[in-house]
């Protein structure tokens, strides 16, 4: 636009009237649009403030420090009805994050499996994958959630007839109950050993890669890491005298008491979001793999690389470059779809916020919080995926 202003008058004069100057016109239209937009925003703002005043509603975020007064069924942090609205919102946010992260993880695994399955030469696997994609991709996510929720509630037994699973776990229509670890004195060492084992595994993987690049010899990374991650904490645990005990669920009057419980609301939302999003991810993966030219596979085969290794070492790394950008959108979709939790009573950010909205009447403030939180979550996911994409991009030498 600055160009329009700095153009010398000598040059624009020959074209005649200023009205016919396309650059002036362009600026004119943009100014008009801006003014109309600003006027609209002002009108909306003015009307809202006026209406709020008339309805005698105080605005601002002070209400967040008030006592919530209601309980939340599922909470990752300590929360009672005496906590503030603010902590209630944090509980909701953490629940949203929990289901989003678990969902993204599972959806990615299922999606990759099904996507690769669709390209399989095995007729049955290919057709089953096709059926999976077509079914889940073409049902609204809310229906998938209802399907899982009524399914979970209808199939699972009543609490008094809980199904006993191995490791002292129980399954009934109140969820999956499992023993809760109670950390006694000295259990810190076991946790430390676990962290140490993970760090060591990373170092082993790096060493193995260097060794292979230098000598061509391969090192059994997977088995070494597994041994480290399981063995080291286990040894420490036994050496420090088994300080961790388990609170095992036992039958109470209404339901099992003790232990930890994953509620059916979380289970069904998590399953529904994973299965629904996986159908889209499968198609993205298939497109990505198809996008790698066939010559690459043929060249790998000609070099004598086995089909499994060809997929893992030749095709997938190249396909990832195509897969990651649309995959990001699916992750964002999954996170946003988690707000459908409200339909089945999972205490996510929208559900908890809705309760607060109702009790305080601060609808504008709560809606703003919702928008800001989902916007931040999405932008953070995008940022991470962009970074990942840049790392995966083909490095040209």
């Amino acid at each position, binding site marked *: 636009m600055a160009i329009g202003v700095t153009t010398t008058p000598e040059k624009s004069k020959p074209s005649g009237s200023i009205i016919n100057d396309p650059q002036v016109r362009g600026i004119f239209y943009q100014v008009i649009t801006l003014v109309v937009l600003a006027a609209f925003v002002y009108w909306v703002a003015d009307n809202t403030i006026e209406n709020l005043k008339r309805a005698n509603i105080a605005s601002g975020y002070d209400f967040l420090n008030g006592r919530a007064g209601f309980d939340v069924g599922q909470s990752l942090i300590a929360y009672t009805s005496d906590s503030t609205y603010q902590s209630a919102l944090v509980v909701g946010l953490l629940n949203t994050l929990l289901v989003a992260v678990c969902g993204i993880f599972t959806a990615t695994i299922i999606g990759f499996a099904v996507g690769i399955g669709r390209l399989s030469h095995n007729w049955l696997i290919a057709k089953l994958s096709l059926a999976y994609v077509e079914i889940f991709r073409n049902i609204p996510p809310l229906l998938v959630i209802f399907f899982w929720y009524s399914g979970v509630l209808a199939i699972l037994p009543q609490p008094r007839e809980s199904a006993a699973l191995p490791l002292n776990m129980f399954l009934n229509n109140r969820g999956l109950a499992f023993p809760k670890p109670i950390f006694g004195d000295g259990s810190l060492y076991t946790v430390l050993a676990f962290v140490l084992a993970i760090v060591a595994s990373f170092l082993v993987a790096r060493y193995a890669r260097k060794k292979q690049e230098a000598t061509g010899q391969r090192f059994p990374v997977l088995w070494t890491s597994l041994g480290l991650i399981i063995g080291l904490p286990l040894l420490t645990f036994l050496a420090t005298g088994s300080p961790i005990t388990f609170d095992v669920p036992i039958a109470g009057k209404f339901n099992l008491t003790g232990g930890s419980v994953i509620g059916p609301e979380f289970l069904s939302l998590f399953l529904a979001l994973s299965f629904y999003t996986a159908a889209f991810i499968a198609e993205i993966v298939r497109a990505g793999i198809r996008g790698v030219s066939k010559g690459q596979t043929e060249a790998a085969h000609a070099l004598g690389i086995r089909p499994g290794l060809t997929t893992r070492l030749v095709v997938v790394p190249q396909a990832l470059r195509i897969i990651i950008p649309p995959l990001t959108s699916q992750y964002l979709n999954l996170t946003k779809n988690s707000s459908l939790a409200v339909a089945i009573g999972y205490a996510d950010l929208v559900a908890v916020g809705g309760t607060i909205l109702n009790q305080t*009447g601060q609808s504008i403030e709560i809606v703003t919080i919702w928008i800001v939180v989902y916007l931040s979550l999405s932008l953070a996911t995008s940022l991470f995926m962009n970074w990942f994409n840049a790392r995966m991009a083909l490095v040209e030498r």
Partner: protein
Amino acid sequence: MAKRILTALVGAAVMGIGTQAASGATLDDVKAKGFVQCGVNTGLAGFAAPDASGNWSGFDVDYCKAIAAAIFADGSKVKYTPTSAKERFPALQSGEVDVLARNTTWTINRDTALGFNFRPVNYYDGQGFMVRKSLNVKSALELSGAAVCVQTGTTTELNLADYFKSNNLQYNPVVFEKLEEVNAAYDAGRCDVYTTDQSGLYSLRLTLSKPDDHMILPEIISKEPLGPAVRQGDDQWFDIVTWVHYALIQAEDFGITQANVEEMKKSANPDVQRFLGVEADSKIGTDLGLTNEWAVNIIKTVGNYGEVFDRNIGAGSPLKIERGLNALWSKGGIQYAPPVR
């Protein structure tokens, strides 16, 4: 400032860019558009529920009809907006509905901070618990450890938390936004206990797959005065909604029914004559911004309070709720109308 503008922008979405709410005279708006927009429950048998062909009926619905009858002499000039517990307040605040007749509890918070006005209590209720008979629970104090189904955004949800806390009981709340979802979850055995206003429990029990397997516990843990709500700042409209209720009570007090209202116009009792607007130079309705026939029109449309009660939730309905506190003051209850004079 930037924060304020963002707030306002969001508000546009929430408040439905309502110029309607900005207009003070609700009665003029209602007369101009030709119907009353009434916020009701999404489906609570006896209070507000649509039948198979979409016609609404129920205790709260009769209040909507009575208001329409008072204004238009025609109880059908109502449009219903079904609202969940969560949606009801923004709907009234924004002007989407003119009056909220949706078994809403009158609390100081709603009367002040939320910007509403309540006056007549058309149903005195209290919160109760429903359980399966097979659990062998006789009192709410035996409910420690139970999973409790409750609707979000209700006073019920808060009373529940307070009751269990003050009695040192543990519970696991299972919270849904829509009544239908709470019903389905309780019916499927997701929770041991269902809590809401006791009138609601009687109504909901009928919709369960096996109503006889469930019982309502004796404890009532709260006061739930239910009544119609309007926005603050429009006294005329507030008066109309208020006096529609008192007219229904007064009619029962006088023994005026849907069937005998025309006859009662000829009554020699000056109180009745004044109430029905047949007194000479009467201003009984015009002072409200209505016609002098307003009470007659209400009674012709829905009957008196007793008839409304019996037909929808009382002896003449499947709910069979006792009048209890909702009997007239002269018959052992606390329903009472100021004098029409």
